[in-house]
């Protein structure tokens, strides 16, 4: 411990409450997983609610699912998986002390995260608003949409409930993406200042775990919201 403190002028990579760097790293990694366990419970509640009403209003949820464009869902899944790859490579660059690569991969991850939100806001939610399928504030399906729901012989309030789940779950997911982009922006600034080293890269790894977790949530949202009604 003392040899680290002796190097004056250089940021001490070891916080004083830890015995060594390995213990510090394990504590950070473990702590992040404890936080993610609470996140599993947060999203888990919504998934449980979804499961109940998916069972209760089976065909209404299928018909509601067909109101969403699965192509945007699939494209966004691909975008998120790409961002998870760049995030994993960013953590690796931090571990191996490649500062330039770290900054590049962090910026790439931010760009991909913004691309995801861009597709979501402009192509999906805006379209939902114009088609009057936003629950609570603008739910009055018309024309083709209404005809589709009538042909499926489903009750409109049940479809509206599906749209509630769609907006709540993708909305909280998008909120997590925005927080993630904020974290990555701070990391990029810290990386530019040279605050990370192979001895201390815990913030990069922790934020990486968070980013991958948000990806996992989407991996489940994509089939449950976009695909249950079939794509044929």
């Amino acid at each position, binding site marked *: 411990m003392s040899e680290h403190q002796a190097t004056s002028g250089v940021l001490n990579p070891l916080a004083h409450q830890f015995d*060594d*760097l*390995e213990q510090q*790293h*394990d504590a950070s*990694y*473990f702590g992040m*997983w*404890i936080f*993610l*366990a609470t996140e*599993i*419970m947060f999203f*888990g*509640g919504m*998934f*449980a609610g979804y*499961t*109940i009403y*998916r*069972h*209760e209003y*089976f065909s209404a949820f*299928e018909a509601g699912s067909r109101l969403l464009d*699965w192509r945007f869902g*699939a494209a966004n*899944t*691909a975008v998120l*998986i*790409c961002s*998870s*790859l760049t*995030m*994993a*490579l960013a953590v*690796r660059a931090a*571990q*191996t002390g490649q500062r330039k690569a770290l900054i590049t991969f962090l910026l790439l991850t931010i760009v991909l995260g913004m691309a995801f939100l861009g597709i979501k806001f402009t192509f999906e939610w805006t379209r939902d608003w114009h088609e009057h399928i936003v629950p609570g504030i603008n739910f009055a399906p018309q024309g083709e949409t209404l005809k589709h729901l009538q042909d499926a012989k489903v009750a409109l309030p049940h479809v509206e409930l599906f749209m509630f789940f769609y907006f709540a779950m993708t909305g909280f997911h998008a909120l997590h993406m925005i927080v993630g982009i904020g974290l990555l922006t701070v990391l990029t600034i810290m990386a530019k200042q040279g605050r990370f080293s*192979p*001895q201390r*890269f815990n913030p990069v*790894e922790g934020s*990486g*775990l968070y980013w*991958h*977790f948000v*990806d*996992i949530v989407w*991996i*489940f949202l*994509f*089939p*449950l919201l976009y*695909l*249950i009604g*079939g*794509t*044929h």
Partner: protein
Amino acid sequence: MSGHIVPQKTYFTIFALLIGLTGLTTWVASVHIEPPWNTWVALAIAVCKATLVILFFMHVKYSSNLTRIAVVAGFFWLAILLTLTLSDILTRTWIPPSTAWQTTTIESSR
């Protein structure tokens, strides 16, 4: 001290698998599988994808047992939540509720 450094090749392999499985789940949705089995197939693929992300991208494959307990505990809690919820929802129709109380109320109000 810097944790396990995963070869770049591993990350690209996992990435390819994840994209492949996304393609698979999208393709399966275009094939007619009798509901609710289509949802189960989609969920099985999603669980595979999530497992790949957790083990490799999130380094759980290379982590300590202490961390693994935290990971498993998180998902185990979710399993309890879903199982107990479904054990109620799915079995409600097994025993029809008694209607005797309704009859008594109507008769007593007359």
